[in-house]
């Protein structure tokens, strides 16, 4: 099962190395990891998407993360009301009339063309991972020359409803 874990860490050198090293040493399967600054100076936030087999493994993962000296807080936010976003840059083959067609495809996704060359264009899309994946699937037939994704960054919404069941894919 896929889980989204956030970790608040002290911004010291080697922290990312320690976290990823621990995860690979303990055979956890990381799907994506994104790190960046937070609202507080010296504190960074990590968002990890991991694939774990059961809740015992998941508990181990959060405990092991929390055990790291520079990790301040660990939360599994998968089952919470949250916002999760990722960014993808997609270089698609396209020239002439094809461009208009591609434009037509990407506009409902609120994606934008950020670079154009003679025979290709670069599209930027931000959003929920399934939306990003859906757009990529639509663009694939046109020929994707290059693709780069940031991995998910996420946090819980300001207000939490009483959630009974939220599928990971609905984020």
């Amino acid at each position, binding site marked *: 099962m896929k889980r989204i874990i956030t970790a608040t860490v002290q911004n*010291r050198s*080697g922290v990312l*190395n320690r976290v990823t*090293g621990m995860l690979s040493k303990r055979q956890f399967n990381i799907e994506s990891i994104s790190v960046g600054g937070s609202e507080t100076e010296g504190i960074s936030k990590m968002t990890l998407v991991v694939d774990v087999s059961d809740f015992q493994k998941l508990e181990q993962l959060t405990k092991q993360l*929390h*055990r790291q*000296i520079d990790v301040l807080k660990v939360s599994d936010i998968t089952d919470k009301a949250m916002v999760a976003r990722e960014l993808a840059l997609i270089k698609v083959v396209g020239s002439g009339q094809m461009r208009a067609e591609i434009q037509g495809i990407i506009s409902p996704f609120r994606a934008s063309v950020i670079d154009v060359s003679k025979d290709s264009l670069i599209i930027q899309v931000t959003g929920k991972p399934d939306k990003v994946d859906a757009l990529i699937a639509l663009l694939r037939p046109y020929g994707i020359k290059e693709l780069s994704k940031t991995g998910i960054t996420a946090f819980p919404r300001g207000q939490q409803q009483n959630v009974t069941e939220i599928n990971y894919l609905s984020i």
Partner: protein
Amino acid sequence: MKAEVECEFVKSEKTMTGAELLIESLVEAEVDTLFGYPGGAVLPIYDALYRSNAPFKHILPRHEQGAVHAAEGYARVTGKPGVVLATSGPGATNLVTGIADAMMDSLPLVIFTGQVGSNVIGTDAFQETDVMGVTTPITKYNCQLKQLSDLPRVVKEAFHIASTGRPGPVVVDIPKNISTASLSEKCNSEVCLPGYQPTTKPNPLQIIKLTDALANAKRPVVLAGAGVLFGGASTELKQFVDQYQLPVTTTLLGLGSFPGTNPLNLGMAGMHGTYAANMAIYECDLLINIGARFDDRLTGSLEHFAPNAKVAHIDIDPAEIGKNVLTDIPVVSDAKEGLLALLNQSVNLPQHEEWKQHLQDMKQEFPLWYERSGDLLSPQWLIEEVYRASNGEAIITTDVGQHQMWAAQYYLFDKPNKWVTSGGLGTMGFGFPAAIGAQLGAPDELVVAIVGDGGFQMTMQELSMIKDYQLPVKILIVNNGSLGMVRQWQEKFYDERYSESIISSPDFVKLAESYGISGVRVDKEADVPGMLNDIFANDDPVVVDCRVTKMECVFPMVPSGKGNHEMIGVKK
């Protein structure tokens, strides 16, 4: 290169170099013994050491591995962090085995490694290694100094992290330019670790759950691990067990946490544990684990481990709870605090007379056993004699292997912190340097290194240390001409194909003499008692080459992958 200074200062007249500041920080941390080996990147530190009148001893091994294992032995018997200093590159990498060993067995170490100058870090400079990269997976924490003003704080944090919560090794990497830079102001050395707040006091609700479970259990058993020793909780464990009259088993590293001669002690559990201890765990309905991490050598096949039991686990490291064995009652706590909380609950317990009698019967019926072969020297008998001759008072250190298991089985540890062994990592070559550290930490105690002929040859150059520092360590080499445990597995599980497990050895007596230490050889049981009485009465170090029967095996045994109830080699 001048280090930047950014912290809050208390002005002082004195200018200090990084090296001097390090020594001052060590004095402040009340270090009394520093195990180290000089080299290029730590020359400034060694120079400062030469000029200073620091009140601590410096102990020089012949290989950095000797220094770190000695520091582990020191930490194990004193409870204080063992402090190690080594140079960059090969100096640092030679420490790796000991750091990994300390990590697995939760020993507090503070290790300082020299590093090449900041300006050449990352250029593959002479004697450069990525110490942070190498030691990250095998340390509780590590860091590289970026500026001199951080040094006092970082050193303080290193000692704090190493010795609190679940102990472990901490590495501080010091670039050469930091140790030569100077600082005229005193800087802030406040520990600042918001992400590190070990929980030491148990949750009261979980304690109530545990005592409820205890009141309802018909077949309870206590499993005591090294956490009891680290928590200094042996007295509380004894009170707890006495109060509720519970049967106790220990892990390998937990030996001595509960008196080995106490009738309620069923002995060590696990692969080479006693039949009674393993059956107690197999048949119990409540297992109370205090400070053990459910290592696979203890549990055997997990599906047969305490299959009918409710499991309670008291551990200071939350990540250990539920790691290997599903836990019904988790208690995150220091062993002492946990036991005190349990003692404060008064519970009326059924007496479990039938259960205890059943276990006592098993203890009587299936004891540890071996066959003596005439006048030849049986290794198990040798250990029993060591126990007798030392009145069970000695500090025993071992490597890994057959001699280790025999020592664990036949030396009854009545008191805590007398047993120094490489449990988790299973390090050959650990026992002898660890004995040196143990002796330095406990100068008035009898320290006996029980080692194999294989393991001793991995670190035997440290005979120089016992000569240099006049340490009365007694080294007993259980010499069977082979890597005994490997040979045993080849015999039992590889159709006696003794692939590269039969080894030669130097003349250990002459070897000892070449270091200026006396050497003795025994190969007959009749000579052992006199020899042991002699060497234990004497204040000199000695190497004893004990030529034991060659093909002896460690029994009983849980074959790898089997359940603890499927022991082989049980006395019938």
